[in-house]
């Protein structure tokens, strides 16, 4: 049976280093299988967060050979067999132990977003055409690979000013909902810092659910922010309409 060499980060936020483990490679094996083999046979104290092993719980995110991935969806035979496979915790979040990171920042961002708020007197029926866009966003499994790979967080540490792709997807799902009556463009501009996103599409590249994060969520939200804050003609139209409505009353 073929053997793979894994270089796995061992340590905490205080420091650490990679340790090498040899793992037999079976057909169809994924990186998470290899990590379980290491846990069972060589390092029972190896910390790995996982749950479903089916690409749906979003728990087993890590950086495999330098690329953010779900370890349960990364087949061993998709990686070069002639060199060691490096498995590191997600770079953008503090390490708790080994491959387990503290992703609580994401939950703090989530709390900033006002939940679904139906329009007063909304008719609770809508057509499929109205909800197609939102259904794409509901595929998100919150693996936070997009948050991890986004250079605004990863390289520039803008966690305080920036929401990150995952939460732009969530806001897009609410903003485009046919029954929601709340505008979150000010939140996007001021608190979630959508202007920091320079649409380099890394979030889309790593999304295991294939959500078109940049094209279908972030750019449409940027356009909505332009509508409300950067388009002088639309601003004028809104003023005239507002004056008209006020005169009618």
């Amino acid at each position, binding site marked *: 049976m073929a053997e793979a060499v894994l270089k796995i980060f061992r340590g905490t936020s205080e420091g650490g280093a990679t340790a090498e483990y040899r793992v037999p490679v079976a057909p169809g094996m994924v990186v998470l299988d290899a990590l379980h083999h290491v846990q069972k046979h060589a390092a029972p104290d190896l910390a790995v967060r996982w749950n479903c092993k089916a690409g749906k719980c979003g728990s087993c995110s890590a950086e495999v*050979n330098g690329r953010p991935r779900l370890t349960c969806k990364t087949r061993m035979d998709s990686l070069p067999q002639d060199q060691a496979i490096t498995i590191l915790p997600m*770079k953008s979040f503090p390490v708790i132990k080994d491959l387990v990171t503290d992703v609580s920042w994401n939950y703090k961002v989530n709390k900033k977003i006002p939940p679904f708020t139906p329009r007063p007197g909304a008719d609770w029926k809508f057509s499929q055409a109205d909800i197609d866009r939102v259904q794409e966003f509901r595929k998100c499994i919150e693996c936070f690979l997009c948050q991890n790979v986004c250079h605004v967080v990863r390289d520039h540490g803008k966690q305080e000013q920036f929401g990150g792709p995952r939460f732009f997807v969530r806001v897009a799902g609410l903003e485009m909902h046919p029954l929601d009556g709340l505008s979150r463009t000010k939140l996007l501009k001021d608190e979630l810092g959508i202007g920091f996103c320079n649409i*380099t599409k890394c979030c889309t590249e790593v999304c295991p659910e294939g959500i078109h994060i940049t094209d279908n969520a972030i750019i449409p939200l940027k356009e909505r922010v332009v509508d409300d804050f950067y388009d002088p003609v639309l601003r004028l139209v809104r003023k005239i309409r507002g004056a008209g409505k006020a005169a009618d009353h």
Partner: protein
Amino acid sequence: MASVGDARLADAPREAWWPQVLPVVLVLSAFGVYATFRAFEGAFYEWGPYLSPFYSPLIDAHHHYWPFSPALLILGGPLGFRVTCYYYRKAYYRAFFLDPPACSVAERPGRHYSGETKFPFILQNAHRYFLYLAVVFLAFLWHDAVRGFFFGDGMGVGVGSVVLLVNVILLTLYLFSCHSLRHLAGGKLDCFSCTTFGCPRHSTWRGLSVLNERHMLFAWLSLFSVGFADFYVRLVSSGAIRDPRLL
């Protein structure tokens, strides 16, 4: 936010970023140099029924009011449309600003980053205004492409006619796959079924979304075609080659 830091990534294989960035740098730089040269050249932009897309619409060709190349009067429109285009932004932020060079490749440390929140990049928000201008330019280019089939001796088809037609088709696809257009056509609506003209707007938005998925492809193809169309007109106009008549 504290993390173990870059030290733990020392062992990670680095994603090869040069192969992704280099072609973009080369093509955009080459196009920039060629387009600048042609914009200032102010000659060889017209032959028979053909007009170079760099000079369309042709304004004050006889220098009554504008002493410089007529291209300089108009190129700001198409240039602004491309510079603020959502696809090209991705391309040049990665290739020229290395911001980031590739998804898992770290940027140079210590750089101040404000994204598109401050001048000059906050001006990217004007993309829709360049879109409106681009629609006007496209109308002129369609006029030029049709005119390219009408020679002095009647209707015909030259290689140049085909070049100009293919160019304007690709430019149309590029414009119609624009993210801003998709937003304005219907993307901005929350509820298609409860808005006046919601149904046709949904169909339009859906059609534009199909094109939008190929926006990058059309961005590159139209860049090549517009450069080639100008180059072809220049060759014919300068007498370097003869325009073969196909029909």
